[in-house]
């Protein structure tokens, strides 16, 4: 049953303090400015997204002559879709499958290793626990890009460059999962439950398996959502592992999108001020590619917004 939320927040700026006309006028003016600011921000954030939606309904001809925010037809989406998966823009289906494989496998590793690790940190006292925790927190606060070059250098020496493992293993490294599991398990409630489980004759494995694990579904959900988004949208790591070695069959969608920028004139004496955007396919197909490749993340963002906020405030960034 959902708890009923009764908000008693008294907001000082929503209602005018007194009814005098001048006050009322000032209040109204403030409201107006406030809504203008919000509307401007909304336009800034929404226009590129709206453009993507509208563009994907248009033909290549529409994009050249029509208004940038014009609508084509619903039928054209289907045609653009066929072009998208025809091999014209590249191996679209393979890219999406790769993205799903890499982020899926990465998330699996993050959960399988991270949850027990966090549990271990919370449930046991041992030498080196605090340094280990601090190391975990620092590892999660380091931007993911900072580890890309060291990883490439390592993959280079280990000769695993251009194998799927080169990105799956780093995606599985999700210290935030360890930390959030630790926070979750290190509460009096869980400690009491574990103590009574041991009293009832559970060994450590059983205590984890039968008590801690079933209780940890919210944490697992959080790790799945956050690691999925971080992995799916990652660009630098797969770029460093696959792009430089032309492993086109291994590309996730983020690299597939990057590949759209390959075409264009390369003759000598070409000046920057003459530059126009060149993509492999018409803008409408590219717009559809962007929408299709980002759709899983958009869906997750909308559904799991609340979880993502709690993740961000605790140290995970996408």
């Amino acid at each position: 049953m959902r708890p009923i939320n009764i908000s008693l927040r008294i907001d000082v700026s929503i209602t005018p303090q007194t009814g005098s006309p001048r006050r009322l006028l000032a209040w109204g003016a403030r409201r107006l400015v406030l809504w203008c600011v919000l509307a401007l921000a909304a336009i800034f954030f929404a226009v590129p997204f709206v453009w993507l939606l509208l563009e994907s309904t248009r033909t290549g001809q529409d994009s050249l002559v029509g208004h940038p925010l014009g609508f084509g037809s619903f039928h054209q989406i289907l045609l653009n879709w066929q072009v998208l998966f025809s091999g014209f823009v590249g191996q679209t289906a393979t890219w999406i499958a790769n993205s799903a494989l890499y982020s899926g496998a990465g998330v699996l590793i993050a959960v399988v290793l991270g949850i027990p690790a966090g549990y271990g940190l919370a449930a046991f006292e041992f030498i080196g626990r605090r340094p280990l925790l601090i190391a975990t927190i620092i590892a999660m606060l380091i931007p993911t890009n900072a580890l890309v070059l060291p990883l490439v250098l390592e993959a280079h020496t280990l000769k695993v460059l251009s194998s799927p493992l080169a990105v799956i293993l780093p995606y599985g490294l999700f210290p935030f999962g360890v930390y959030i599991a630790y926070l979750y398990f290190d509460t009096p409630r869980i400690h009491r439950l574990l103590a009574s489980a041991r009293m009832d004759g559970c060994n450590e494995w059983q205590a984890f398996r039968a008590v801690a694990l079933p209780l940890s579904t919210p944490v697992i959900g959080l790790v799945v959502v956050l690691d999925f988004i971080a992995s799916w949208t990652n660009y630098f790591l797969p770029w460093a592992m696959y792009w430089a070695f032309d492993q086109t069959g291994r590309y996730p969608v983020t690299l597939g999108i990057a590949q759209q920028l390959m075409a264009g004139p390369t003759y000598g004496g070409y000046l920057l001020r003459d530059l126009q955007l060149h993509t492999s396919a018409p803008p409408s197909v590219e717009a559809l590619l962007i929408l299709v490749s980002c759709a899983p993340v958009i869906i997750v963002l909308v559904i799991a917004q609340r979880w993502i906020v709690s993740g961000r405030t605790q140290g995970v960034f996408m």
Partner: protein
Amino acid sequence: MLLATVGIWPAGYALNLALTSFGGAFTGFANFAKTYNQGFLIPAFEHVGEFMLIWLTALIVIVIGLSLVMHTLSRRVSAPFRLLFYIPAAFAGSASVLVWLFMLQPGMSPWDFVLQILGAHTLGDSLASGDLPIVYALIAFWTGAGGWILVIHGALTNIPADVLEAAALDGAGPWQTALRIKLPLIKKWIVYMLIVAFAGGTQLFAEPQLISQASQRLVDPLWSPNTLATYLAFQYDNFNYAAAIAIDLLVLALVCAGLLVFRTGLFKAD
């Protein structure tokens, strides 16, 4: 106990990586000195510095401003706005760069009138070297600001109602409440945002790499430390220089992480 040792894995893994790349650079500390003397690295850091100045200012002014504005509305009214601001985060990575290349292409962009006012008639005009930090900050802001708005707005809603009520009874207007009551109370989160955004900003890669690629390398491919390092590694096979730059960046990131852990008190490690 066995499970606990698994905890070492992620932490140890990261450490191991740092050490292996050091191994590459161990042939001499000279690699560090050389990267500085080559004359690429300082400009790269300067570029990122310019970008950061715009990006962090935008975060402070616009993100905090919008969060304060939304905090004066009820949660239900502001919720769709917060979601709208956050959706571009789904385009992080390469998608946002491609989207913004379309946004910066005169004739095709919905912002065409703005580009015309600014005197941009080709994509190249939009990407003139002086504009690059602004362009990258724009992309970073479009994808990243929404997430920070959620954090700052969340921090604001955690301010107890009686504090705001007391301020109102004492005669504080909305401006005073915002600047003197609300801002000091969420200072910790603002510092947190700035340090994290700074650490992330030093790692700028997708934007300069893709825009250089889209311009047939007419836009500097060595623009940021990360694009410089990958260029050295993959175009010149100089993995030692790349490792030296990677370590520079990693040290910066570690300093930021250390500040967050030991100075902000936001993380629990006991």
